[in-house]
């Protein structure tokens, strides 16, 4: 009986210690760029769902899109919209492809607009690697409460995107939301959920629709 009591207390204490240690670990991970990079270093792949909410001053109701993303180091990314239209962006081994919905089914898109997307996709890949400092387009500022603010380096680009705010998650290495501001009233918010880390993502997922 006494043994049972001691055993239960030990388990409780160990559990409590575990929670405290986890909290300490989580609280600190996004306090510095080193902490963010270190957390990202432990991530080899991410799969998650996302909800995209578009707000504009003219809209009475935001536009909602949903999709999935898969990222695998070093630089493979699949950014896929499922609803309301299917649209897939793929980055793998330095090349980029887009598949888009059409009346005839999925169509592969080629051409100049994809070169611009290459920069964007590389930028997103750097976020998942915790490398906010090597951006060609943005200056990064780390704020309290696990928030990162990205400001355009060039004034001309600032007319396209005013700023980007990334809210990092409790869980080390993950991002909760990304909000892209075109103006104070016009923004796109991506909310990530059901993230799964370090699973084996088949290479084919990055090579085609």
């Amino acid at each position: 009986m006494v043994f049972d009591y001691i055993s239960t207390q030990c388990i409780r204490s160990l559990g409590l210690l575990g929670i405290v240690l986890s909290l300490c670990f989580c609280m600190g991970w996004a306090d510095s760029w080193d902490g963010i990079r270190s957390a990202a270093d432990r991530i080899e792949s991410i799969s998650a769902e996302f909800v995209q909410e578009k707000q504009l001053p003219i809209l009475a109701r935001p536009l909602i899109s949903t999709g999935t993303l898969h990222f695998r180091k070093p630089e493979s990314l699949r950014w896929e919209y499922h609803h309301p239209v299917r649209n897939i962006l793929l980055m793998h081994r330095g090349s980029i492809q887009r598949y888009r919905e059409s009346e005839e089914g999925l169509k592969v898109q080629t051409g100049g607009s994809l070169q611009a997307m290459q920069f964007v996709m590389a930028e997103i890949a750097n976020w998942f690697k915790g490398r906010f400092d090597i951006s060609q387009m943005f200056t990064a500022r780390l704020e309290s409460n696990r928030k990162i603010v990205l400001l355009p380096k060039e004034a001309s680009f600032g007319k396209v995107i005013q700023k980007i705010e990334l809210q990092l998650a409790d869980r080390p290495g993950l991002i909760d939301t990304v909000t892209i501001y075109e103006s104070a009233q016009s923004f796109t918010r991506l909310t990530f959920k059901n993230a799964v880390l370090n699973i084996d993502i088949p290479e084919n997922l990055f090579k085609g629709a």
Partner: protein
Amino acid sequence: MKRLGLTLLLAFIFVTAACSRLPELKPAAGDFKAGAPQKCRAIFPQGKWQITHAIEAAYPGGGETLLMGVTVIDASPRTIAAALMTVEGVVLLQASLDKTLTVQRALPPFDREGFAAGLLADIRLMFMEPDAGLVQTGTIQAPTGADAKPGCRYQGDNGMITDILPGDGNDWQIAHYNPRGSLVRTVSARPAGGQAGLPGRMRLTASGPGGYTLKLKLIDAVQLGD
């Protein structure tokens, strides 16, 4: 051989142009004639709406892209606010039209002179009854070459002519002619996937050397209060 090719090309252009002339309007049967203006007006949304479409745009030279278009229209007063954006949410063009055109945002190449005015004119053609007066009702040959259908003809002060062929349900067509009687725009609607009385699919074709096609798939239609 080259001369023969050129002759055939010119003949083709002539025949095509001839086919795109303003078709003759013939008297319609009594049933349609009685309710014609209401039937033609009924293809357009009444009141205030927020309408979202996925737009497949095909440009001269074979370029194609997929965009999202959101339009807030008010039938009375006749106002339009519209935004064209990428699937990722980047706003490429935002403009509004009441008595005057205001461009809130335009990124290259959508900042070309006349682009915003052209886009809003296309939106007005698709979603608003012509502000020109209804001049005639009758049976009109559709620009697609299908059988003649009962329809309405509107003529604006600027000489532009708009034929509306309401058809059954959300299966309708609009043909827009310049003052010389040449076809400049066609809009056709299909009911599949429709919501709130709006067609699920629409196709706008702009004729001429800089012509383009917009295929619209209805995503969402919300009626708004005042």
